[in-house]
């Protein structure tokens, strides 16, 4: 069987693979996308779908901010079912120590030109009457938003397909390397560049990548329009999301455009099974009810789990894989894949085509991986 020839073959039709296909096709490249399941069926379907600016590190800030700008530019084109809602984020401070963090964040975001506002207890009560009384304050990030990821991935893929990208779903990739990709059924693809955007499965195709599964639980309720109006996040979220070892839960609730409440979050290394862990779920919901007492009486209609593709330094892997320059990585986005998908695609195609990039891509290069492996151990 002769090989199908492309400029770029992308493994993974999640939000990152779809964004890469979208960007490649805009640059006139001949592209094929392959996925073992459906569009957006992995972490994309399982995630919360926030479009947020985060400042765990300067590099994370640069990437999330760049990507949020790209989403805002794309917004007029997004169909209704993507449910993009610029609800803003409120980081909630429960004590003076957390309030110090609010002020630090405020200074950092302001310095970088991101609109932010410090909230006092009265503001919080007015903006989010269902939050427990006695909050010390908070930080409002008005440009943050949420969307419905599976439809966002499908939109990007539809656009790409409209420009000639071919999509191969429910196909198992047996191996990639040296400009070749083999499907389990024997089909071969030949391509100068193979993008591994397989999320948590990336390391199965490219052994040695410092990506680990990090399990999460989410709960969605029936419709309660106006119950919360912004994405609400506790400041402890930073700390628990930071920890690379312990299981943790944190308060994170989103108002969906449907009026439903999406309740998170949990982070666990280790479990490989998709089953709901009742202890983790219980802790997560206890945390959420601690912040939003009236949540107790709302009706939860679904619970699910998913796996984030996590790297030790909380930054994705975007760029060529040192041991095989035909392989480019676009994975390791952990909980920020929806936000950073568009920027990832830009930086990836910048590198493939030699374009000048809007922000430096060096912090995300997989060549830093040797040190990362060490960090994981």
């Amino acid at each position, binding site marked *: 069987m002769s090989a199908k020839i492309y400029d770029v073959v992308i493994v993974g039709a999640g939000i990152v693979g779809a964004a890469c296909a979208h960007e490649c096709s805009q640059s006139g490249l001949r592209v094929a996308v392959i996925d073992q399941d*459906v*569009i*957006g*069926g992995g972490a994309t*379907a399982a995630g919360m779908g926030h479009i947020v600016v985060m400042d765990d590190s300067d590099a994370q800030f640069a990437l999330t901010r760049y990507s949020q700008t790209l989403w805002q530019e794309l917004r007029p084109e997004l169909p209704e*079912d993507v449910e993009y809602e610029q609800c803003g984020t409120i980081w909630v401070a*429960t*004590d003076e*120590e*957390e309030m110090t*963090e609010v002020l630090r964040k405020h200074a950092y975001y302001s310095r970088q030109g991101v609109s932010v506002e410090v909230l006092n207890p009265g503001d919080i009560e007015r903006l989010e009457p269902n939050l427990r009384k006695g909050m010390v304050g908070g930080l409002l990030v008005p440009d943050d938003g949420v969307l419905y990821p*599976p*439809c966002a991935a*499908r939109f990007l893929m539809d656009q790409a397909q409209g420009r000639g990208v071919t999509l191969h779903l429910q196909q198992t990739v047996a191996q990639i390397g040296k400009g070749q990709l083999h499907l389990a059924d024997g089909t071969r693809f030949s391509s100068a560049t193979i993008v591994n955007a397989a999320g948590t499965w990336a390391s199965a195709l490219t052994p040695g990548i410092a990506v680990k599964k990090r399990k999460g639980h989410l*709960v969605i*309720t*029936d419709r309660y329009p106006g119950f919360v109006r912004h994405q609400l996040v506790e*400041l*402890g979220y930073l*700390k*628990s999301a930071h*920890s690379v070892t312990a299981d*943790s*839960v*944190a308060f994170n609730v989103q108002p969906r455009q449907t009026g439903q409440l999406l*309740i998170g979050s949990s982070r666990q290394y280790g479990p490989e099974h998709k089953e*709901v862990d*009742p*202890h983790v*779920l*219980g*802790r*997560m*919901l*206890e*945390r*959420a*009810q*601690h912040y939003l007492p009236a*949540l*107790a*009486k*709302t*009706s*939860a*209609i*679904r*619970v*699910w789990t998913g796996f984030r593709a996590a790297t030790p330094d909380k930054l994705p892997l975007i760029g060529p894989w040192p041991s095989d320059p035909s392989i480019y990585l676009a994975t390791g986005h952990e909980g920020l894949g929806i936000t950073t998908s568009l920027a990832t695609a830009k930086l990836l195609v910048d590198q493939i085509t030699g374009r000048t990039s809007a922000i430096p891509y060096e912090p995300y290069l997989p060549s830093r991986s040797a040190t990362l492996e060490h960090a994981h151990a």
Partner: protein
Amino acid sequence: MANARKHFDVLVVGGGPAGLAAAVSAAEHGARVGLVDDNPALGGQIWRAGVVGHGPGAARWIQRLEATGIEILCGTRVFDSPTQNSLHAEIESGLLELNYQKLVLATGARERFLPFPGWTIPNVMGAGALQALVKSGFPVSDKRVVVAGTGPLLLAVAAYLREHGAKIELICEQASLASLALFAVSILKLRDKITQGLSLRKELAGVRFVAGSWPVTAEGDGALTAVVVSHGQKLEKIACDFLACGFLLVPNTVLPALLGCRLQNGFVEVDRYQQTSVGGIYCAGEPTGIGGVDLSLIEGQVAGSAAAGHAEASRSLFGERRKLQRFSQALDRAFALRSELRGIALPETIVCRCEDVTYERLKPYTSWRNAKLQSRCGMGPCQGRVCGPATEFLLGWSPDSVRPPVFPVRVENLGAMVRDLVPQDSELLRGPQ
């Protein structure tokens, strides 16, 4: 909040005929039995008590039930099984943890609804639903009702509604006259069934019954005013206040599936003692095969006796069970859904009522999961219990894997898994860590 923990030798889920029989049999063998049901009263759908109390069929079993000291838990909704030999259920005031040695699942069946233009208009409802509404006190006298769909349930409902003063304008049976005739011949050997049929014939005397006929459009702005039915070649419009329809029954297998019980062709697989593929878990009634009250009662007795450790006590019922199973197979053949019913949903017809997803939005997808992710079909509070069987028939999709909670549940009770079961090791993450 009244969270509580209860322990039973035998726990029965479902208070319809199968569950009642199972609970009574297990208790009469000396087991400590709990009987759980989501509905406000026992009886299931077929023996719903409503405002006038139970009929004679149910009363006999409920009398036996009351003589045994079984703990009855109505208004109790099982939503999860967080650990082995334990179920979590929600009640009005909180959470129940129900621990058991043996479990009997008698979760019954629901009606299959097929989408057609107008089926979402108020007063188009399930045949069983309209009957339940009347049993629960809704005055149906002088209301004009069309009964449509398939199966013997239609006749029973029509007879009931008529007895309560409704004007039955038409009974539409989608099965052809030929297959009904074959069915009549095939059940000749079952004397009591024939008697039942004859008695209904008396109650339905003068009511128009058309075989090979099905609803194609319901009309009305805000409430139903008329229904258009197809008699195959020609259409007929009938003014009415209610359309009661149902296209056979679908077994409720979500809880058995959650517990790991093996299903075959959509039904729970059981051995001769009604034990499922999971040791200590039994299943009786419609989830093992749609068979009606008599078969459910027998299966319930077999399951209840076996769960109480007296498996052989019910051997004498095996013969009758076989006979009734043959009857139900004949029923399946006679009332198989005709392929024309796949054509009654138009592109703009809503299929998923929770999320208002139309037929045309589902057609591009190849699987239930893909359609769910992209269109939200099945993502609402019914968790696909209505649109799942419809898309199974229309598009051949098979259902997703089952995840807890198997019913919507208050957040406080979903979270209470930890609060009550693991008291100390769940301290909150506080502030900066």
